[in-house]
């Protein structure tokens, strides 16, 4: 048991190490010279030298990395070149928007996806199943930015129910207002996620439904809906949650685009502003934090499954 948790934590730490190297190399070893790009074409060699020195870029790569990682571990992600503010506090200011977006999109996709998956699995091979499968495949193939624009055209331009973009959102402070602003972005972000969840729910349920204990439950004269919900869904849920955890990465990536479309002031937009203004410490800090968030979600998910399902913990999953 302890071995399982330690193993997972170890893999998480290796992943975080790779994350840090990628984020580090981003600024230090990209093709082209970020310093020149940062300063613009008019920079004198002296200015470039000064900037390099200020950022510690004149040291050997390995000692630069060590110095940088020590800084990061103390919670110092550097200073934004454009605004002069610490990167960490800039990012933290943007987290509520992105977090609300991600959490609501997950909730919506679980509700839609699990629902659709159950309908499909319960009617396996029939019209409902085929319809649900088609909807799921369409959902996976639709890029979230297209869904976002379609929703915008439908609800904001044609029906005029919702504003094209709304006030800044902080769900904890102004729940009602932020829900109104977040509704379309959340739907756009959750759609393809929901399709993935639906697909996984269906195939996982179909697997479980062929198990013998399910036949026993039917044989006892249990109502089909009860068998499905009480017995099958419970066991089918772990692969579904794994899908949710793994695809959290796509959700994070999706927030970048969705925040841009709906003009939401989240972390993703900060990243794009960093890109536009060539503010490299911001890019680096956000890559580090977003990747770390993703790695942590996956470690937590693994831990959770280990607690829920002893077969996983003991390494017997799939037997």
């Amino acid at each position, binding site marked *: 048991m302890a071995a399982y948790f330690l193993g997972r934590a170890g893999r998480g730490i*290796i992943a975080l190490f790779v*994350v840090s190297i990628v*984020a580090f190399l981003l600024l230090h070893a990209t093709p082209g010279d970020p310093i020149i790009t940062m300063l613009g074409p008019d920079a004198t060699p002296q200015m470039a030298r000064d900037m390099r020195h200020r950022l510690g870029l004149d040291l050997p790569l390995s000692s630069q990395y060590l110095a940088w990682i020590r800084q990061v571990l103390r919670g110092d992600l550097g200073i934004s070149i454009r605004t002069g503010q610490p990167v960490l506090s800039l990012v933290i200011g943007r987290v509520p928007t992105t977090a609300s977006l991600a959490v609501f999109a997950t909730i919506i996709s679980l509700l839609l996806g699990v629902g659709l998956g159950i309908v499909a699995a319960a009617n396996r091979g029939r019209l409902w199943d085929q319809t649900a499968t088609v909807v799921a495949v369409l959902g996976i193939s639709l890029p979230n930015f297209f869904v976002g624009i379609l929703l915008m055209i439908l609800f904001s331009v044609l029906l005029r129910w919702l504003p094209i973009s709304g006030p800044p959102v902080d769900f904890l402070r102004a729940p009602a207002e932020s829900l109104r602003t977040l509704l379309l972005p959340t739907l756009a972000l959750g759609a393809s996620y929901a399709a993935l969840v639906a697909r996984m729910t269906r195939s996982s349920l179909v697997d479980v439904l062929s198990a013998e204990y399910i036949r026993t439950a039917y044989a006892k004269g249990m109502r089909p809906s009860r068998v499905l919900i009480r017995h099958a869904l419970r066991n089918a849920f772990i692969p579904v949650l794994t899908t949710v955890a793994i695809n959290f990465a*796509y959700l994070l990536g999706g927030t970048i685009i969705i925040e841009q479309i709906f003009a939401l002031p989240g972390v993703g937009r900060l990243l*794009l502003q960093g890109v536009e203004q060539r503010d490299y410490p911001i890019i680096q800090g*956000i890559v580090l934090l977003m*990747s770390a968030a993703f790695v942590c979600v996956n470690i937590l998910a693994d831990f959770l499954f280990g607690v829920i399902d002893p077969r996983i913990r003991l390494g017997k999953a799939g037997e």
Partner: protein
Amino acid sequence: MDRLLRNPIVGTAFTVTIGLCLIALLAPILSPKDPLKMDFKAQLTPPNWSYPLGADSFGRDVLSRLIHGARISLGISLSSVLLSVAIGVPLGCVAGFVGGLADEVLMNAADGLLSLPPLVIAVALVGTMGPSVRNVVFALTVVYAPRFARLSRATVLALRGQDFVQAIWALGARGPRILARHIVPNTVAPLLVLATVTFGQALIAESGLSFLGLGAQPPTPTWGSMLSESQGFIQQAPWLPIFPGLAIMVAVLAFNILGDAVRDAIDPKLRGR
């Protein structure tokens, strides 16, 4: 293969894929107008006889831009998948076949890269290196190559233990020859499935990047940039985003269906799931 294509859905997906490739290859011949030519009298015209899919905010022909956009969008996706295969597969095969330290290092690196959110990494890479077609291909290769390394390693490991490989060892064949002649050919099928599915994802990623202004730079048309340019005009011209959006969707859909079909053909156990 024959049996696969007789399935009407798979057949359609296959036809669509071939059609898209032809459109991309023959873009200059097929496109009715110059995709870059602006006609300010035609700004935001709805679809009509002279502009079958309407004109954009600069009065450029949407149909011609879509046709030329296929070149960039499909070209970038194809190049990044091919590069990922070219880099990932040899590394994965060697790691699986040689084992030991090389395996440890390569696979930990691959796992680390796989545990990063793809679009975040791609945006950061292209953002730092500067938006261009070459950098998009590079970023997508960084994101996708580890998958191919992982899969080919797993396949090689499974094959290495099999009787026919053991038999060839016993016959005195040398390692590199076994790898090249007997193992690599057997990894083709699973890699083909992964490549097809990855292609669809690469297409979405490429469109996303060019939607964010990080792909091919204007005025070069790409499906993603056409979509983002149209967003500012959805009040006046709500039809404008539909066509590039549909183009992306149809292409990705065709590849997803093909990927599923190839997987079913290779592994009949998975059929209908």
